[in-house]
């Protein structure tokens, strides 16, 4: 293992990578500025929230794909592949039909009904389809609630990537030090890592600024760039990673020999430097006299008081191959001594082959990462929660005609194939290049980018590779910001407070709402839960569970009624939330309760569907005029 890896795993950035990354950011701003100029002079609401409903294939397909591939795809998903191995191929494989299901199932009808209704948001579409304010208001509240969790996760992911990229840039380190001195004692803000805080604020300013300025057109145009960056970044990373692990066959065979790590506590001794203050970063490599290799799971400040006395959390490497490699390349001069009992993985501990089979290893769940029923429910989850997301649905109201739609479905299918399959190959191989990343698995993507580019002597390329997940996050955040802002302005203010509002006022309100939502997201993202993917799955599952059944039936079933739509959405959202609250209470950490090993999205969607069908059948016949307006004869 080389020094580049040591540098990268402690968060070091390179100035050339930083320049490449900043170049990408400048391109994003230029595009957003141009988009804002194009939209000038047109109807504000239609332009700002829907880009004039006139997008062609490239814009529509790439904005859809880029929005769907969020921070979860490039941060949370790689972390899961790294932690649980090849079982993630089964977990994600529902994406093979996502373009078909999520786009073809609804796009044509949503676009058509949206045009008939003159709607520009999904709550507005539902409101007009049923001619009911209750339906619209319920939909808006649910969008705002779940979307906020989604925003939190994306903000966290964006800030995490920046911390890796800026690493040890001197000006950045000075700024972090100053911020630490200033905010260290502040309530809530002081508890966030200062480097994370600085990056979070940078990220928020960047994305909020161009979204508030350029609206939907800026979001779509930047999505096109971001989609291309993602694709190119993944393919380059694939080539570099596979070449450095000696090919896929070799990587799979070596991975089959690996065993999951263990968790324990260790006392640290500085040896020659005894008595001097030492700082060790989270993830620092340590060795013990009896040949154990481990990584620190927390940042350590080691002074005379702690030296040889205090216990720290460590991750203990168990695979013989990983141990040998690290022994040959040396570790820190600080020595560690493991004390007390070790915690082994509940599934897969000490077993070779667990990383190349399913259900895959798991630190806490005895059934492993992916029991059969959970795998099957994820196949449904990716497709139907994707189809049920208002942020994706609203894009389906923006394409020009069905020719654009047909080409886009095919384009998105190819795009996802070239993104998700390579990601699996890359991050199963990453275990061989970067052992022990379980200490901060969410950072595996940017860290791996730093390592493989340094190893290949093209450190500047890390900027482009890191831009890929960053692009994914930005393209999702801008869309969600716009969705939340449209919910507040269009669906709450205009529908419930003041209907007739001058365009200028709407423009001002929309931009300020976007900014306020951004600030609020930053405040809550200061101390987010540890696993990005959990938050993302909760938020997307909640939205899907609330909206999929009511929207599909609203578009395809003439008999559906407004009270059924309201009840269905509420039941879907509440059931989803309840399963997570139960899971939280049982496991003592935020996560889903898996009844019969089935994801709660399935239960919540089924409950929603049953309620909508039963109430519609039991209720009065729907207004015939509305039926004719949206279904014809």
């Amino acid at each position, binding site marked *: 293992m080389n020094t580049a890896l040591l540098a990268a795993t402690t968060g070091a950035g390179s100035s050339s990578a930083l320049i490449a990354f900043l170049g990408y950011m400048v391109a994003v701003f230029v595009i957003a500025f141009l988009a804002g100029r194009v939209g000038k002079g*047109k*109807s504000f*609401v*239609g*332009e700002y929230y*829907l880009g*004039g409903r*006139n997008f062609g294939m490239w814009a529509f397909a790439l904005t859809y794909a880029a929005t769907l591939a969020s921070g979860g795809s490039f941060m949370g998903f790689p972390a899961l592949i790294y932690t649980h191995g*090849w079982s993630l*191929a*089964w977990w994600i*494989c*529902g994406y*093979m*039909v996502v373009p*078909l*299901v999520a786009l*073809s*199932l609804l796009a*044509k009808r949503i676009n*058509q009904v949206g*045009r*008939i*209704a*003159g709607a*520009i948001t999904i709550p507005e579409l539902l409101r007009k389809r049923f001619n009911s304010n209750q339906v619209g208001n319920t939909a808006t509240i649910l969008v705002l609630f779940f979307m906020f969790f989604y925003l939190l996760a994306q903000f966290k992911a964006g800030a995490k990537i920046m911390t890796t990229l800026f690493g040890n840039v001197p000006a950045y380190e000075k700024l972090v030090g100053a911020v630490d001195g200033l905010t260290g004692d502040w309530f809530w803000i002081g508890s966030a890592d200062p480097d994370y805080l600085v990056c979070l604020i940078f990220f928020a300013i960047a994305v909020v600024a161009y979204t508030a300025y350029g609206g939907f057109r800026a979001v779509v145009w930047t999505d096109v760039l971001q989609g291309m960056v993602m694709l190119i970044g993944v393919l380059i990373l694939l080539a570099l990673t596979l070449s450095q692990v000696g090919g*896929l*066959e070799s*990587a*799979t*065979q070596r991975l*089959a020999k690996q065993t999951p790590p263990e968790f324990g506590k260790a006392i640290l001794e500085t040896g020659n430097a005894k008595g001097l203050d030492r700082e060790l970063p989270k993830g620092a490599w340590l060795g013990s006299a009896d040949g154990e290799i481990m990584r620190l799971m927390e940042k350590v400040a080691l002074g005379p008081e702690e030296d040889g006395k205090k216990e720290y959390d460590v991750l203990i490497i168990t695979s013989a191959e990983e141990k040998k490699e690290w022994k040959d390349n040396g570790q820190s001069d600080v020595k560690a001594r493991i004390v007390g009992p070790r915690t082994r993985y509940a599934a897969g501990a000490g*077993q*070779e*082959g*667990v990383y*190349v*089979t*399913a259900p895959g290893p798991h630190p806490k769940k005895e059934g492993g990462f992916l029991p*059969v029923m959970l*795998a*099957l429910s994820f*196949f*449904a989850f990716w*497709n139907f929660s994707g189809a049920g997301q208002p942020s994706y649905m609203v894009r389906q109201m923006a394409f020009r*005609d*069905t*020719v654009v739609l*047909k*080409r886009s*479905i*095919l384009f998105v*299918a190819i795009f996802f194939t070239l993104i998700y*399959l390579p990601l699996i190959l890359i991050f199963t191989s990453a275990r061989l290049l970067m052992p022990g990343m379980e200490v901060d698995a969410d950072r595996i993507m940017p860290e791996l980018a730093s390592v493989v580019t340094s190893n290949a002597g093209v450190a500047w390329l890390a900027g482009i590779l890191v831009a890929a997940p960053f692009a994914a996050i930005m393209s999702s955040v801008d869309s969600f910001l716009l969705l939340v802002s449209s919910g507040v302005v269009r669906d709450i203010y205009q529908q419930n407070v003041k209907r007739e*509002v001058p365009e200028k006022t709407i423009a001002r309100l929309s931009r300020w709402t976007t900014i306020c939502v951004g600030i609020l997201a930053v405040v809550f993202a200061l101390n987010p839960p540890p696993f990005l993917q959990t938050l993302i799955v909760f938020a997307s599952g909640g939205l899907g569970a609330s909206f999929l059944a009511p929207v599909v039936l609203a578009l*395809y079933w003439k008999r559906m009624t407004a009270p059924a739509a309201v009840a269905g959405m509420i039941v879907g959202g509440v059931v989803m939330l309840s399963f997570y609250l139960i899971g939280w209470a049982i496991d003592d950490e935020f996560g889903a309760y898996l009844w019969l090993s089935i994801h709660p999205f399935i239960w919540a969607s089924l409950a929603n569907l049953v309620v909508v069908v039963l109430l519609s059948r039991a209720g009065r016949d729907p207004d015939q005029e509305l039926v*004719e307006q949206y*279904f*014809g*004869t």
Partner: protein
Amino acid sequence: MNRNEDRNRKLGDSFRQSRREMFVIVGAWLVFLIWTGLVCAFGSGLDPDEPVKTLLGMPRWVFLGVVLPWIAACCFTLWFSMFYMKDTDLDPDQDGDHSAGDTR
């Protein structure tokens, strides 16, 4: 036939076509769910006495249960989007007063 009846008839036809397409999509989803589910559930287990079997460098169950159906799904998507899905008039009220971005 007056203009409104004509509009409603065309919209009704396009609605029924969209509904047919929806059933085909759900059917395809089900086929791929069963394919991946069966191959992965029965082929992915851990056998400590056997070395890992690979195809094109990846575990065999991944190739047969994920990569192969993924390629098949792409082919099906090509057929569906280019040959089965029908063009539809998305704006039956084109000459009416509903336009994108109206502020009503």
